[in-house]
């Protein structure tokens, strides 16, 4: 699979990333590195432990990486989750908020798996 096909599959912005990072070689190199990134696991574990401060930082990191690589499909739910967690840092979420966090985490997880499996085919 080409880098461009991969970006189509994961709903990424291929034109954008090439414009910013200049070469397809560099984009591919960092897309491959994404496979080793642990921020999504960390996010999930922190949420399970109800450590919202740590979860916020992990979501923030994940979002930043997605921005750098123009993984738009993953960046959008990661971004929404980051902003929701930012407000929860100092307090315990209400039931409703907890449900929203849960739902967003599932979206992130689904999109994360799509992204990882596409990159593995590069």
């Amino acid at each position, binding site marked *: 699979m080409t880098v461009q096909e991969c970006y189509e599959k994961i709903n990424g912005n291929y034109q954008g990333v090439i414009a910013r990072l*200049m070469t397809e070689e560099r984009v591919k190199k960092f897309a491959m590195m994404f496979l080793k990134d642990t921020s999504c696991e960390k996010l999930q574990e922190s949420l399970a432990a109800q450590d919202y401060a*740590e979860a916020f930082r992990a979501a923030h*990191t994940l979002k930043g990486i997605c921005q750098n690589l123009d993984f738009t499909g993953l960046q959008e739910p990661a971004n929404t989750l980051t902003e929701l967690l930012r407000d929860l840092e100092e307090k315990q979420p209400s039931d409703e908020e907890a449900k929203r966090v849960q739902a967003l985490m599932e979206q992130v997880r689904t999109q994360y798996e799509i992204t990882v499996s596409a990159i593995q085919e590069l």
Partner: protein
Amino acid sequence: MINREEHKQTILIVDDSMMNRSILADILEDYEILEGSNGEEGIEMLEKYGEKIDMVLLDIVMPVMDGFEVLGTMNRHHWIENIPVIMISAEDDPTLVAKAYELGVTDYISRPFDSLVVRRRVVNALTLYEKQKKLIDMVVEQIHEKEESNGVMVMVLSHIVEFRNGESGLHVIHIKLMTELLLECLMRKTDQYKLTHSDIQLISTASALHDIGKISIPEEVINKPGRLTNDEFEIMKTHSAIGAAMLKDLLEHHNEPLIKVAYEICRWHHERYNGRGYPDGLEGEEIPISAQVVSLADVYDALTSERVYKKAFSHEKAVDMILNGECGVFNPLLLECLLEVQDQLKKGMGDSAMGHSSDQQDVRNMVQNLLHQ
């Protein structure tokens, strides 16, 4: 500028995401790269490498210690003044951007960043800082040169006075050396006088001018073999006020610290701590510390030098006489200093007598030639 062969510039990247660090390192591949995965590691790097680090790229949201805390620490240690910081963050909240600038960052780059923009801004900031460093170095060098040539001129001038007085020129060298030793000791002992190293340099340089007023004392009084009569002594005593008056005219047009200190020393280097000196009978701390130190040095050197009417006393005898109050009363703190620096003093005086200090030897030869032409 970027790729100076002899020295690659070093950039510290502090970001909790290994991927982000790698992307930045990749974009900046022609620089030496250091990495920290949170604020604490960043600070450790700064402590370890100091100003070998030419720039910091800093993330905001990080575990353990965030970017703002790093900036706070860099401000407390004044590192931020010499090391440019570029913030790179996904945060685009204007209040956070404003806060970063307030804490002294040079630039703020939002994620997702463009590799060309990152490179360009890094190069620009490094170039600016390098220019600034060069300018600072140039100014420091010029000040140094100015001080040095000031010192030479003062030496020439004071030697002219010395030779007219029939002295060897060693007297001013001794006074300068002793003034420096006493002041350095005093600075270690107390912060009462708020002395800095540059104050000490200034006072030592100015000390050589303490007797310039003697230029207007008649030759037959100055060079009289044997003791002076009371009348002659009264004439001799005017030299401190005359020297000060010469400088006071200068001060009206040139408010130079060197002239100001020289004025104090000229006027008051014969005052005594108990108010029994001349010309103004100032008492205790009314006498500027510059003049207090030079008067002690002047007395010591007069005692340990040979005069037409007396032999040179030994160092030990001179110190005894001063401590016994035979030459008037001095600041007790300065007497403590005299005892503390006496070994260095004995050694320094011996060295200068043998002409070890080559700069001063040159000046002495020059003046001697001038006077003999």
